[in-house]
């Protein structure tokens, strides 16, 4: 579906009357703004938007949206959203998660939702910490991080959200950052337009418990050198002068500078988000500073049958082929006998 503007909504139409209660300086404010900016661009009726969340700071999100909203229980948002979408496929279903909600208590629902490819958008706020329970490490916290529950440092190995998405055969994965409102809004629009489960990871800052965890990517001094903004069909260039890029040597990716060691623009990889083969997407997902820039934008967007469409298809086929059209007919079908 192309981006259309058949509705006259503005950002304000999507703000609820509730006071926003995140901590001052929290990255969630910027994400809320970006989603409220993105929705008027989708050309859909307001009553068709549903925001579903689990538990955590991020999960308060639906209260601040003037749409249908359902703040549910910890980790189960994808399962509830699955039922909502299957029950009414006309809805535009958005599911908001934090890294703990999505990848710890709800990890199973997360991968199974992606595997099924129900047409919905999962926006995962990744601040690499538990905020609402006041500062324990999360499944994405880095090794060594000292938190309330790890006074001697984290010894768990962290998940990379995108790796799970690839492992679960995800059809759409994008990554963005809370410091770039335009990139966020553009990605949210693309996520909604994708048919299937769109997983958007937002690198988000928790100002209280894990401040500046993403600074190697997001800070002013790092952002040019450590952000790779991917566009389908465009070369993977980054740096202030766009003179650096990603090349492949053998099966490995390397960060290179054009003009050095004989590297030319022709050596720079072209991003193919639509490639069925997810091997390069996985390599892009795994890149991180200091060896590499962090890949942002739509990393993978491939066509795959959406589960809700398959459900509708089976139902239509059954209706066309099964002579039983109502309960009375079913009740009287098969082995029945009369007692006189």
């Amino acid at each position, binding site marked *: 579906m192309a981006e259309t503007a058949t509705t006259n909504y503005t950002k304000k139409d999507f703000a609820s009357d509730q006071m926003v209660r995140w901590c001052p300086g929290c990255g969630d404010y910027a994400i809320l703004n970006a989603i409220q900016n993105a929705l008027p661009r989708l050309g859909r009726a307001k*009553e068709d938007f549903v925001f579903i969340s689990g538990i955590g700071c991020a999960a308060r999100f639906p209260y601040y949206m003037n*749409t249908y909203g*359902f703040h*549910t229980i910890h980790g189960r948002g994808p*399962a509830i959203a*699955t*039922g909502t979408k299957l029950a*009414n496929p006309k809805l535009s279903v958005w599911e908001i998660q934090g890294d703990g909600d999505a990848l710890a208590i709800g990890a199973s629902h997360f991968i199974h939702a992606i595997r099924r490819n129900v047409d919905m958008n999962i926006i995962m706020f990744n601040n690499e910490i538990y905020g609402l329970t006041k500062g324990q490490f999360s499944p994405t916290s880095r090794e060594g991080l000292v938190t309330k529950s790890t006074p001697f440092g984290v010894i768990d190995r962290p998940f990379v959200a995108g790796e799970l998405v690839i492992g679960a055969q995800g059809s759409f994965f994008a990554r963005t950052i809370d410091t770039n409102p335009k990139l966020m809004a553009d990605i949210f629009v693309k996520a909604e337009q994708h048919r299937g489960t769109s997983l958007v990871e937002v690198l988000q800052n928790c100002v209280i418990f894990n401040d500046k965890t993403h600074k190697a990517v997001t800070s002013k001094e790092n952002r040019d050198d450590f952000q790779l903004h991917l566009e389908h069909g465009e070369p993977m260039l980054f740096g202030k002068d766009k003179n650096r890029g990603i090349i492949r040597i053998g099966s490995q990716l390397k960060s290179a500078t054009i003009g050095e060691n004989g590297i030319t623009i022709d050596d720079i990889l072209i991003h193919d988000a639509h490639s069925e083969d997810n091997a390069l997407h996985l390599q892009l997902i795994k890149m991180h500073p200091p060896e590499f820039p962090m890949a942002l934008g739509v990393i993978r967007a491939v066509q795959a049958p959406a589960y809700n469409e398959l459900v509708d298809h089976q139902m239509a086929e059954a209706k066309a082929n099964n002579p039983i059209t109502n309960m009375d007919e*079913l009740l*009287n079908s098969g082995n029945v006998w009369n007692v006189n």
Partner: protein
Amino acid sequence: MANVKSLQELDKVVIRFAGDSGDGMQLTGSQFTFTSAILGNDVATFPDFPAEIRAPQGTLEGVSGFQVQIGKTDVYTPGDRADVLVAMNPAALKSNIHWIREGGNLIVDTDAFTEKNIAKAGYDENPLEDGTLDHYNLLKAPIASMTKTALEDLDIDNKAVFRSKNMFALGIMYWLFGRSMEPTEKFLENKFKKAPVLIEANKKALYAGYFYAETVEALPSTYKVPAAKIETGKYRHISGNQATAWGLMAGAEKMGRKLFYGSYPITPASDILHELSRHKQLGVITLQAEDEIAAVCSAIGASYAGQIGVTASSGPGIALKGEAIGLAVMTELPLVIIDVQRGGPSTGLPTKTEQADLNIAVFGRNSESPAIVIAASTPADCFDFGFEAVRLAYEHMSPVLLLTDGYLANGSEPWKIPSMKDLPEIKVKLAEEGSENFHPYTRNPETLSRLWAYPGMKGLEHRIGGLEKEDVSGNVSYDPENHEKMTKLRADKIARVANNIPEQKVEGNGDGDLLMVGWGGTYGAMLTAIKELTEEGYKVDLAHFNYISPLPKNTGEILKKYSKILVCELNLGQFASYLAGIYPGTTFEKFNKIQGQPFSVTELKEKVKNLI
């Protein structure tokens, strides 16, 4: 038949088939049942099978049984003791011999009584030769070898021959009871239509068994169980799980909404999923979820979106769903949760029946978390209560837990087919689209249920969730007074469901010296017990409950009339304790059984006789 010694006419007869779980005893038993039902007998069945799909052959663990009672009068249970037991091997004999009455007919496959099998079953000596079976009319039939001889002209492998021996056994039973083989022949033609040679093999084995029994006349008599006097009309056979599935579908059709069933496979509830997944043409959506929690959550998501959200499980799964059911309580969303109870705790006895999930259904969620709890009492009335669960959930905007059990789920009975037009309307109060100042927690003053508005309805956008709600507006509220008010409102809403359910019935003459009280799947045994006791001159009545939470309004009045009350249940007394909490000062005697098996009529009657 010229060579029959005698023909006995019986009002009721109980037959039990037992063999290895690969011997096809469930199929044999259900064929016998179906044929009898078509001939006009009333019937009730009880499959009794192991949790292991194929435990090692010949072992006690692998024995699968199927019991059926057929009668010319009303039959409410599969019967206490078998008049005829078919045992396909020594293990089946050993684990089922206590089910046969003294003097009953015992048919065994002697070919299976090898030294190895006799030892595997734990016998020191061959029970067919040591005199221990002298109390029974024993028919020693070389079933396996005769089946093999009968099928020797056919081009099939040994395995297929071996698998046909259950038809040989069925043939013997058809002769013994003078049954037509036609319904089974039709069944075989349909079942094996892709493999005609198997139709021929099974039919040959069936006839061989029939003619063998006719020829050897080894049993003292054949039997006739005349047709029952049952209400005229169109009938079908239905099992509890199928009836539950169809009741849910009937509820959805009545409301003109899609049925969404989120479920995770679990014994003995899975057949509901299998049944519902076959009916996509009627707008049924089934989701086999990744786990029990996702199953209930997807159902909540579907209810939230305006359809009929249903999930089902057995005890272990219900325990996992608790938090999500609490979410439906808090958000006051309709939801149906079916608990097909089995023996517990933990994994317990997966294939055996029990009634020990009453407490978890009524109380098994954190905090004050009231929900509607109802229970079905026969395989066929699972249809009525499946429908009723949908009706109550949507008329009262609340989760409804429907308790059935393994005995009801797998049991079956003939069922007079209902008509959709005779089922009640389901009255749902929707919010008005585009209404100004819509508040999600605006209540119907009579029922206290909130108005329903769901995504897609214009102008009614609102937020709900698991946090405490401010009365009316539904906004998040931590106000202490508001929390108490809302807690009481949620409880009062469930209490008022009593205005929308039938009064409790008492069966019997209403002036008994003792009131038997039961609930759920024990109905057949308890009803039979009071009927037989009444015939024997005792004054006993029965109050059998289908509505658990809330209880019918006249419950207290009924209890007051009796000086002796005996609560019978397949647990350690959960319903008795529940009643004692609501009606303090009333004395409840208890009769409990927790063996994974239903009550026998005999043991219920004995208990009553001891008390009167």
